[in-house]
């Protein structure tokens, strides 16, 4: 009975469209990682693992880019999840105008990153930007920094801007997860005399694991793929301090070195797939248990 009720052809269109317009170019692209494909000549020569060797040999700054990408990813995953959950709990119940606040927190996600970058580039300008000017106005001049150009602050600022933009999105997903928890669990716990932390750890967290898995996967992939945030705010600067994988890939494509650019993005793709695979396995197991 199963076969006929859930016919295979339902999934056919998706598979076809996806395969032709997404997988095919991607796979072709990966093939080019092993060539010297460039924009200057039409001839392509197979050069084997030369590109990959260059990436991992420590020559150039590739390993540094990989490191930056990882730092960015881990930081934003943690921050967005923790803050997202915190805000979701805050806006779940017990305050007025929660609809309004939820919209406010979600607004930044709607604005394209390019625009957000432009805005914050202006806000974070050390001399004339809104942030430092406000700090000066309330007498906290000592806290002003060169947010985007000081080696110690540039990357943190980029992370902060990305979190500002993305936390609302994560919050909405976690909020949905929170609201799907049956209130009776909490009531039972109240009766049993649990305090806030116990409720959090024993009821809330376990029951929103599905939502957390979704947000973690999203955050991970977003972090690894980050481009516009870095590009618009610092373009990898000062010097090369904030360059990540995708800004490096972009640079390779810009100088016409398509083979190397594709090699870099293939490396990234493999990393993301592996990570994604494990996280998804986790979710599938959760799904089966229900």
């Amino acid at each position, binding site marked *: 009975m*199963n*076969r006929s*009720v*859930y*016919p*295979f052809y*339902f*999934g056919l*269109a*998706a*598979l076809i*469209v*996806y395969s*032709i*317009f*997404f*997988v*095919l*170019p*991607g796979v*072709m*692209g990966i093939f*080019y990682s092993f060539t010297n494909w460039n924009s200057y000549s039409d001839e392509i020569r197979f050069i084997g693992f030369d590109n990959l060797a260059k990436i991992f040999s420590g020559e150039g700054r590739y390993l540094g880019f990989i490191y930056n990408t990882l730092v960015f990813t881990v930081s934003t995953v943690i921050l967005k999840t923790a803050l997202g959950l915190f*805000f979701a709990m*805050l806006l779940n119940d*017990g*305050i007025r*105008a929660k609809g*309004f*606040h939820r*919209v*406010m*927190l979600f*607004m*930044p*996600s*709607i*604005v*394209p990153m390019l*625009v957000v970058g432009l*805005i914050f580039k*202006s806000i974070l300008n050390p001399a004339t930007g*809104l942030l430092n000017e406000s700090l000066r106005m309330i007498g906290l001049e000592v806290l002003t920094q060169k947010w985007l150009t000081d080696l110690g602050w540039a990357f943190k600022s980029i992370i902060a801007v990305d979190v*500002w933009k993305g936390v609302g999105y994560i919050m*909405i997903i976690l909020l*949905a997860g929170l*609201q799907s928890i049956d209130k009776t669990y909490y009531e039972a716990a109240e009766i049993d005399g649990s305090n806030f932390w116990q409720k959090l750890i024993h009821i809330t967290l376990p029951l929103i694991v*599905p939502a957390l898995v*979704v947000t973690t*996967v999203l955050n991970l992939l977003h972090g690894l*793929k980050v481009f516009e945030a870095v590009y618009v705010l610092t373009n990898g600067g000062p010097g090369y301090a904030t360059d990540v994988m995708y800004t490096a*890939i972009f640079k390779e494509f810009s100088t016409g070195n*398509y083979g190397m650019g*594709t090699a870099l*993005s293939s490396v990234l*793709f493999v990393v993301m*797939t592996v990570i*994604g*695979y494990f996280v*998804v396995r986790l979710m599938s197991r959760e799904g089966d248990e229900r």
Partner: protein
Amino acid sequence: MMNKTLLPALRNVFAWLLSAIMFIPLLLVVVNSFKTKAEANGMNMSLPSDFQWSNYSIVIAEGKLIRSFFNSLLYAGGATVGSILLAALAAYVFSRNRTKLNQLFYFYLIMGIAMPTNFVTLMKVMQWTQLVNTQLGIIVMLAASAIPFSVFLIYGFVGSVPRELDEAGIVDGCSPVRLFVSVVIPLLTPVLVTVAILNFMGAWSDFIHPLYFLNNSDKWPMTLAVYNFFGRFQVNWNLVTADIVLTTLPVIVIYLLGQRFIISGMTAGSVKG
């Protein structure tokens, strides 16, 4: 233990503070969109001396915003409908009928969440399918790239639609298509709306695909118009901000309209009978 009245009050204050932090940078954009070029140069919070509504009319005319608005609507709308349709169909059968092959296909589909888009090879594919420089081509590409994520989200929720309903439907003589359309889809509405909104937002802000795959600026979406207003040397902040306001407004509207569905729908769908 916190005072019963203090805690909620603190929470309220905190919520307002949070909203302010989220909103102020956006307010900056709106405020500056009404200034003259010189006033807007500093991009600060001071109020404009005169409200330059003309900024908006200039931006609309020079940026051909009316035409590009409809283009954006076409691409985002088309891609959203397309991706939801295809993804829902696929997620449904792969989730219900978990054969080894189907599980493989599922992983194949969601692997795409991680795959980067290679525009140069994509160009070749578009030429081969004769879809290059067409509006349909844009819709198809955007839909294709939204499928992995949509399948991922919908797949999880299909599990929350009880199989008993399917069986009831079969017993009543439903064909597979009818079962899907009349029974499953209505119950999937919350997640479908959520995915629709997310896909719409993503497609709306995309400008890369039109840049590479359209050769006529009449077909361009709103997102590209902003580049008319700043060159390498000069930035007309007042015009740029006006353009940003106009470009993001539609998405905000869609979100406001759809947000009721997201939260309320997700909770209703999970209540067990």
